[in-house]
């Protein structure tokens, strides 16, 4: 009997049944005895100060237990400092905590919190809280602050320098035979996970349990503990089910701490769930941005220089920009590069990670510019990319830990039928009635981030033959928990179905937050180590057990299948883990595994690559764009579960479609707040917009990034997808679309 490897199998999600039947309980659905509700009151002005808070009507409203504001909320114990959650420590989303004084920095900033016995009563009383403001001048957009822009020293929570240089861009441009300059503007975006962020806080004496909607339970624990001034060991965070995230739950925002403070105040468990509208101003966003790119190339297409400036608004307390310059810096073998991040202080909260943070916008710019360059030079766009292929990491000269981009191009082109493409980018060259057809492609790149802290997991086999693996990571809908069961099963020599994963709890061994596409690689390393250690321990026990048929055998001759240890070549000689444990009157066996990440300087360039292809139909009369099909081929290292990986990549590609054609949060120009904070007005693609999406994974071996060679699939699917669509639009219409989203009014041919 042959047993297929557990790693890579398309095992269905372990939590699927609970999710589709409603049995899964999310953070706001935990209802401890006596639980009450808190509702936020948020500032309607973008700048100024609170001159008065009248809580009198709210306080006498039915069911109200408390109205908290800067007037009566305790001060937090520490000044928050923004640190990305990947670092594994506190993860304040911004260097600011609300309701500490009368100052208003942005519209939507929490100014008061009403606690009442039911949600409806709390909502009603929140409307009764009167807040007076002295409004002050404000800036919320690039255009309003353009003349006050400054060059950032660092961005991204201090992780990325504000300026990067290599070679000599002036010399490179002088050498160029073709120079292209383009400016691209991006609307702000919001994550809009289907589950709005929420926390339920329960105090028992000095111990706090938080049911929190988070990508990192440990990040919540450390951040909330620091703000409350309590030992982290007194804070337990449970986050079993998270209804999507996309970066909006990567950082720890104010609401879990506020829930804990409210619970302390009213001496009862408190649930604080943000409304959809509140998530727009309380869980970060992808900032509005403007990119200016200059490309220099020789007539054969070889790049000689890349100059890149990004301008975007940040908050008054942090220098944040998503690192959009990465793809232009990393994709091509160009010796001369200069990149600068310019910032504008604005009255918004600090922007944050959003799926493919930086790569999503940056790849759109470099990949549409490369398409333009190919057209200028009369080259096939794919050929231009091959001519500039980076055989080593252009930023450092280091070898790649693994790559596979050429293979992705080749396979994608084959699947998509790229080589039979009509090269003419002319309006109407290919037509079906009112629809003009075009195709386009783009490259995809996403870094493999190195996590910093040791990753831990615990594996246990029971005498009944089942196994449990425990790891603190959250599963934000990616299927991480299912996949970890497979990794453990493979290492234990068991079937995935016999392994249960416990996760999403700070009482379990600590792992990194599910961020930066790094979770699968980091957590699988710990799980695999723990499970392998347990397997070896059990085998050793059998070999030393005089009652075992394997007594005295050579450990190298033992194989384990479906939980049964046997002699290689003599499957009749052996016994199951459970048999051995039972005979020895042992209930279970356990091992803890730990993996120490190699650190940032591995001596290799580490990134995931892919190739995106799209076909669009455009009705230039009515401004309509329909994406007909998308093909994405990616090289994500080792694939742990082909079903969930496929879903991640396909979902990413559809995010790219949304970014290309729909997603935009507009600032209300006269009021300085988001104008469309609802799913009715912030448009994401629906099934009717969804084309035929073809996803293929080319596994590449990587011995550097982590023990299983997993490079992650959470974000790469989005990178380049919008560029492929915009390039297809050019092919269909002969017109360039440089700003996102590409709207009906921009596509409508001029009258």
């Amino acid at each position, binding site marked *: 009997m042959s047993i297929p490897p557990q790693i890579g199998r398309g095992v269905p999600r372990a939590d699927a049944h609970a999710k589709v039947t409603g049995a899964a309980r999310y953070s706001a659905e935990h209802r401890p005895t006596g639980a009450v509700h808190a509702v936020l009151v948020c500032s309607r002005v973008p700048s100024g100060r609170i001159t008065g808070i009248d809580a009198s009507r709210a306080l006498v409203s039915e069911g109200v237990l408390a109205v908290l504001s800067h007037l009566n909320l305790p001060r937090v114990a520490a000044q928050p400092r923004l640190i990305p959650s990947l670092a594994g420590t506190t993860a304040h989303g911004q260097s600011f905590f609300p309701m500490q004084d009368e100052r208003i920095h942005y519209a939507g900033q929490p100014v008061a919190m009403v606690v009442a016995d039911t949600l409806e009563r709390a909502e009603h009383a929140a409307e009764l809280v009167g807040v007076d403001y002295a409004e002050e001048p404000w800036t919320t957009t690039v255009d309003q602050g353009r003349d006050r822009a400054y060059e950032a020293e660092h961005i991204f929570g201090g992780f990325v320098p504000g300026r990067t240089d290599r070679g000599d861009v002036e010399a490179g441009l002088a050498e160029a035979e073709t120079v292209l300059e383009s400016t691209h503007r991006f609307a702000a975006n919001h994550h809009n996970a289907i589950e709005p962020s929420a926390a339920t806080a329960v105090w028992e004496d000095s111990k706090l349990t938080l049911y929190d909607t988070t990508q990192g339970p440990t990040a919540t624990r450390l951040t909330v503990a620091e703000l409350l001034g309590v030992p982290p060991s007194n804070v337990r965070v449970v986050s079993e089910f998270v209804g999507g995230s996309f970066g909006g739950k990567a950082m720890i925002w104010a609401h879990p701490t506020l829930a804990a403070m409210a619970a302390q105040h009213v001496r009862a468990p408190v649930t604080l769930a943000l409304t959809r509208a509140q998530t727009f101003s309380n869980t970060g966003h992808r900032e509005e941005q403007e990119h200016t790119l200059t490309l220099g190339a020789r007539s054969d297409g070889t790049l000689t220089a890349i100059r890149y400036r990004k301008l975007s608004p940040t908050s008054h307390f942090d220098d944040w920009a998503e690192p959009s310059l990465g793809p232009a810096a990393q994709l091509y073998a160009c010796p001369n590069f200069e990149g600068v991040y310019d910032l504008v202080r604005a009255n918004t909260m600090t922007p944050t990670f959003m799926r493919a943070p930086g790569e999503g916008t940056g790849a759109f710019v470099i990949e549409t510019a490369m398409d333009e360059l190919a057209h200028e030079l009369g080259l096939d766009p794919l050929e231009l990319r091959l001519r500039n292929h980076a055989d080593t990491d252009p930023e450092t000269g280091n070898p790649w830990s693994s790559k596979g981009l050429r293979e992705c191009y080749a396979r994608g082109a084959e699947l998509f039928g790229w080589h039979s493409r009509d090269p003419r980018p002319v309006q109407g060259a290919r037509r079906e009635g*009112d629809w003009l057809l075009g195709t386009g492609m783009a490259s995809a790149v996403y870094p493999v981030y190195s996590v910093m802290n040791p990753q831990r997991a615990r594996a246990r086999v029971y005498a009944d033959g089942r196994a449990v693996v425990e790891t603190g990571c959250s599963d934000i809908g990616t299927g991480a928990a299912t996949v970890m069961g497979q990794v453990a099963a493979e290492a234990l020599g068991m079937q995935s179905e016999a392994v249960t994963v416990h996760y999403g709890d700070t009482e379990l061994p600590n792992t990194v937050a599910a961020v930066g596409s790094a979770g699968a690689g980091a957590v699988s390393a710990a799980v695999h180590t723990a499970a392998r250690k347990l397997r070896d321990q059990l085998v050793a026990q059998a070999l030393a057990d005089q009652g075992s048929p394997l007594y005295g055998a050579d450990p190298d001759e033992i194989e384990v299948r479906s939980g049964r240890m046997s002699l290689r070549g003599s499957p009749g000689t052996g016994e199951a883990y459970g048999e051995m444990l039972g005979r020895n009157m042992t209930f279970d066996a356990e091992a803890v595994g730990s993996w120490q990440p190699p650190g940032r300087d591995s001596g290799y360039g580490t990134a995931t690559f892919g190739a995106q292809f799209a076909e669009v139909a455009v009705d230039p009369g009515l401004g309509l764009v329909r994406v007909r099909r998308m093909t994405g081929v990616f090289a994500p290292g080792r694939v742990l579960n082909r079903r969930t990986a496929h879903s991640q990549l396909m979902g990413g590609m559809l995010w790219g479609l949304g970014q290309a054609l729909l997603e935009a949060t507009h600032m209300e120009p*006269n009021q300085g707040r988001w104008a469309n904070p609802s799913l009715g007005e912030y448009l994401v693609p629906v099934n009717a917009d969804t084309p035929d999406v073809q996803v293929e994974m080319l596994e590449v071996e990587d011995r550097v990034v982590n023990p299983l060679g997993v490079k992650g699939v959470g974000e790469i699917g989005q990178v380049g997808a919008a560029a492929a669509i915009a390039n297809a639009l050019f092919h269909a219409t002969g017109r360039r679309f440089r700003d996102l989203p590409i709207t009906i009014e921009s596509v409508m041919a001029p009258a």
Partner: protein
Amino acid sequence: MRSFAYSRAADVESAVADVSADPTSEYLAGGTTEVDMLRLGVVRPRRVVDINDLPIAAIEELPDGGTRLGGLARMSDVAAHPVVRERYPMVTEALEKGASAQLRNMASMGGNLMQRVRCSYFRDGDRACNKREPGSGCAALDGVNRTHAVLGTSEHCIAAHPSDAAVALTALDAVIRLRGPEGERTVAFDDFFLLPGDAPEREHPIGHGELITAIDLPVLPVARTSHYLKVRDRESYEFALASAAVALGTEGGTVTEARIGLGGVATKPWRARRAEQALAGSEAGPEAFARAADAELADAVPRGMNGFKVELAKRTMVRALTEVAARTRGGTA
């Protein structure tokens, strides 16, 4: 959310009596808009009278050959009805392009006509809106107004009427049947929707407690060749940026009768009478269609972000006319 009383009416008489007697009460049908508005605090009734048990959900043929749609008939049932599909295809198309399948299964025809505008300034309790708070001003005039109206606007309100179905129904000259404390009456479809003028809070010429019991579709042979074209940002679950409901009759290539409604661009379901007049007797072709569209949009008032809608409305109308004209020719060839 404020507390309110809830009751469930068993028959039309008691429903009308209950709501008429209490100025702070409102009807609740499918609830697909009303519940949103309650939660947003934009409508604040003290009492909600659920009318879902009333026997006014039927779809039936009338003795004169017309068709009666019950006020409580669900959008999905009307769209699927064979008589509607055959005689008024643009009604089916408009219904099926509205909302989402789930909403259409709940939403009633009467509620569809009574639905409130989607203007974000109307739906957000603390922004200036004359419709929600008469005299407070209109923040949309120089705000985020990409989806707002260019026809039928005033200095006091530019919110676009959101219904798709009503665009087809206005082209048909449907008749609205009302039941009030005083008894029954009918209102012509176009008269049922008021322009905002200087009183945008008043949307319909009806008294408190009057209930839509039915919508009557007249006999209109030309409607058998009709089409609803909707242009929107995404392919489902989104309101029109521009739409056109068009029925066209031709004889020997000449337009004998044209019925045109426009949606997404006007403050009410817009009957394009100027375009209809321009088309009557013209040769059914691109020139006449373009002339008709120009005539209809001549008085359009674009503002800020919605300037493209003037041209988009014209193109949408022309495209729909072109499509139906092709079918007309196909039918007579």
